[in-house]
């Protein structure tokens, strides 16, 4: 009982940081509709800046002043990011901004590396709150009690700001209808900037306030990212009390998880989120989003036509060039090109559901890594021949997509995205922790192709056939009745349902189809590397595909392939340099600002302007 109570207190203390950071994220999303991936980076900056300030500001007063100043400093950084990076892309398609924030993550990572070094920083203990207090015989740090006491004030302060003040009214109005608020004479640009300031400040405060408990390191940006998204979704988008309850729930469960069921810690919050979303699809305190029939954001997508003769010849020439690569290229160029093709297939499979179906999945890596693991497990446990394992990989991944799709289909929008993320994390932690079966962190090694495919060149051709084949299959499916029905379900589910199309079932089928093709790319991957590790199932892998689709152009069929190839080759080149993240981040931000319709979307427009390709009547 004593231990129970002490752990409850620890959980509540941990909730302080989580709540601060998550409420900032929730505010920013609510008003600007931007999924701010860089929020974890703001949190990390808060910790580092707070640490540096605490070195120069002594005493109890200095400590709390440092926390406050760190928060404000991060708020200012948030404003800079908003003005420089996000303002130019507000008019871009929905979710495009997340690519920009992804670029910001990379930049901040390298800046932090440069300024504070690669070593973890131990946070100073709070002056005046260094000791412990015994509660029912159990030691509880004084600082924890201070955090527990402070958090409700933050909650109340925020709640007051949002519910009672004029600024709060504007923020809430903007959350419900941005355009209307703009029409009523509110300067939206500054409202957005203000909200970004507030959100970033909260993240910075969260980072600084947890210093005595956790210190600062360069991984903390990604480490908290998943958790704060989970908190926001469980609590219900835009609900402050919801964020607090969810933060407390997650933190407390985590503390108990560590004690009683250590292997559960990686996945616990995702299980909670999955359960909550399946019972309450809009989170604990969230309300159903009245989406109305606004249709697509920005310029409507254009009609598609199968490629004409010219383009076909061009593609054929490109394929011929790829086929001749072993003749004039090095082994390394073949390996690199294989990697690119595999990644392009993976991205193209996500594009099928994201671009054509409008279903944003944050967990597509589950099917890429899933396919790889199915093949690897078959080879290492039952000694399956490579051909059988290769064939069963897409089927296995497709089956996983079938089940997960069925569970996620009743949700929409961001909630759908988060539930797919939750299931992907579930699979990841299962693989990670079931060591004796999956090899855990050590992965599965020695997964090589059959003798007839041995060597770089044979496997390169194998990849070429199945990788390009898969991409062409996806492309053809887009032009088939199935692809049309998928687009119809996205364009107007009202009309589709009223003319006999079961939109949810079409989307479910597309999800399964895309999952199995991601599995195919995973199978190609595992036999080319000879091994697979849990990293292939990680969130970062899912985001890679997401990023390149937007970089390439979500509203063009070739977007995923163009974006995938560009990013992979750029990465290969840049990773030779020390501060490659900074460079890559800046390039991504640059592309996002210059080419808000993605690389292929913008190229198309340029080509149209100069009359290289014919423009359809009435389009601009």
């Amino acid at each position, binding site marked *: 009982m004593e231990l129970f109570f002490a752990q409850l207190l620890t959980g509540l203390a941990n909730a302080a940081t989580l709540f601060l950071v998550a409420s900032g994220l929730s505010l920013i999303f609510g008003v600007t509709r931007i999924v701010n991936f860089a929020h974890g980076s703001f949190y990390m900056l808060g910790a580092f800046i707070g640490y540096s300030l605490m070195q120069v500001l002594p005493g109890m007063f200095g400590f709390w002043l440092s926390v406050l100043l760190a928060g404000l400093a991060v708020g200012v950084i948030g404003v800079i990011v908003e003005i420089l990076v996000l303002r130019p892309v507000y008019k871009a398609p929905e979710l495009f901004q997340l690519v920009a924030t992804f670029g910001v993550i990379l930049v901040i990572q390298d800046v932090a590396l440069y300024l504070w070094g690669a070593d973890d920083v131990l946070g100073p203990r709070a002056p005046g709150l260094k000791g412990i207090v015994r509660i029912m015989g159990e030691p509880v740090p004084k600082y924890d009690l201070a955090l527990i006491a402070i958090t409700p004030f933050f909650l109340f302060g925020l709640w007051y700001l949002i519910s009672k003040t004029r600024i709060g009214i504007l923020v809430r109005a903007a959350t419900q209808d941005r355009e209307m608020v703009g029409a009523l004479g509110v300067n939206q640009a500054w409202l957005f900037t203000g909200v970004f300031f507030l959100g970033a400040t909260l993240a910075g405060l969260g980072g600084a306030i947890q210093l005595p408990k956790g210190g600062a390191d360069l991984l903390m940006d990604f480490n908290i990212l998943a958790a704060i998204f989970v908190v926001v979704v469980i609590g219900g988008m835009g609900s402050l009390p919801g964020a607090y309850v969810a933060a407390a729930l997650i933190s407390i469960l985590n503390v108990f998880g560590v004690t009683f069921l250590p292997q559960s810690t990686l996945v616990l919050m995702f299980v909670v989120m999955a359960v909550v979303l399946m019972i309450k699809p809009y989170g604990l305190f969230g309300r159903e989003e009245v989406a109305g029939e606004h249709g697509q954001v920005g310029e409507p997508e254009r009609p598609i036509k199968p490629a004409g003769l010219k383009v076909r010849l061009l593609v054929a020439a490109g394929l011929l060039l790829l086929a001749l690569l072993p003749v004039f290229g090095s082994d390394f160029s073949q390996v690199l090109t294989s990697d690119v093709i595999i990644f392009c297939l993976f991205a193209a499979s996500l594009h099928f559901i994201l671009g054509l179906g409008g279903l944003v999945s944050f967990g597509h890596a589950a099917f890429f890594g899933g396919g790889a693991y199915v093949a690897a497990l078959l080879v290492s446990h039952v000694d399956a021949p490579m051909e059988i394992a290769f064939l069963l990989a897409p089927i296995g991944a497709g089956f996983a997509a079938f089940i997960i799709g069925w569970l996620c289909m009743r949700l929409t929008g961001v909630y759908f995205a988060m539930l797919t993320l939750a299931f992907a994390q579930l699979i990841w932690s299962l693989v990670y922790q079931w060591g004796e079966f999956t090899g855990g962190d050590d992965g599965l090694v020695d997964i090589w192709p059959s003798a007839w495919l041995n060597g770089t060149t044979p496997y390169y051709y194998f990849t070429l056939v199945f990788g390009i084949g898969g991409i062409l299959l996806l492309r053809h499916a887009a032009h088939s*009745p*199935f692809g049309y*029905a998928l687009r119809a379900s996205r364009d107007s589910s009202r009309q589709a349902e009223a003319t006999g199309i079961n939109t949810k079932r079409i989307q479910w089928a597309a999800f399964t189809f895309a999952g199995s093709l991601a599995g195919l790319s995973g199978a190609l991957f595992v036999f080319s590397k000879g091994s697979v590790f849990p990293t292939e199932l990680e969130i970062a892998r899912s985001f890679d595909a997401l990023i390149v689709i937007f970089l390439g152009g979500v509203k063009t069929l070739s977007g995923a392939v163009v974006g995938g190839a560009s990013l992979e080759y750029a990465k290969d080149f840049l990773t030779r340099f020390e501060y490659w993240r900074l460079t890559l981040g800046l390039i991504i931000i640059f592309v996002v600002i210059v080419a808000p319709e993605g690389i292929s979307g913008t190229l198309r427009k340029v080509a149209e302007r100069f009359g290289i390709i014919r423009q359809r009547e009435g389009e601009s």
Partner: protein
Amino acid sequence: MNHILEVRNLSKSFHGLRAVHEVNFDVSEGELLALIGPNGAGKSTCFNMLMGQLKPTAGEVYFQGENLVGKYPRDIWRKGIGRTFQITATYSSMTVVENVQMALMSFHRRIYSMLPYAHKMYKKEALTFLEMVGLASQAERHCAILAYGDLKRLELAIALCHNPTLLLMDEPTAGMAPTERESVMQLTADIVREKNISVLFTEHDMDVVFGHAHRILVLNRGELIANGSVDDIRNNPVVQEVYLGGGNLFESDKAAS
């Protein structure tokens, strides 16, 4: 005359608010039946219940003898009921003709097919439907750039794809210029006469209603207050009070309560 649709005691409450209360009416074969009433009378609620978008609190809807209550919109569509929307709903990423082809693919149960090229399927058939509504010359245009009136025509073409026996049209001329209203309504009347389709439509424009409806139903505060020919309704004092009574209506209510 045969009744193709029979509505019996249809009711819907939202948290105790009686939006539609025990409404009864029939639609006869080949009939153009107008459902009118002031804003908030329950017209759209009625419509959404007929199309399966809303589940009635009580009552039945029989289409050719079969109860439709509890069925999905897509299943009701398959039985031979077409609909158009008050706020147009079309596939903005497709061309005009592809919008119609999509409905035809669905009608022929080909939407899960992955082999053929969709843009070639049922194109001729789709063009005849576009011809019918006067959109043939715009068949290859991007649907997103169509004028509003043309979108309404396109919806009509889509709704005709599965050779319906009954059309439900929710404010078919809303948001149109007066001359265009007349031409769209005349077009609709001609098509349904030729194909012997019955139509139930809601409408605010009395010129359209009196000019084309064979019979009129008047809904007020969720209850059917009149049902009769154009002349009956025009001279009905209760209907006049509802439409022209203005503040009077609310005064008399206060007195009653």
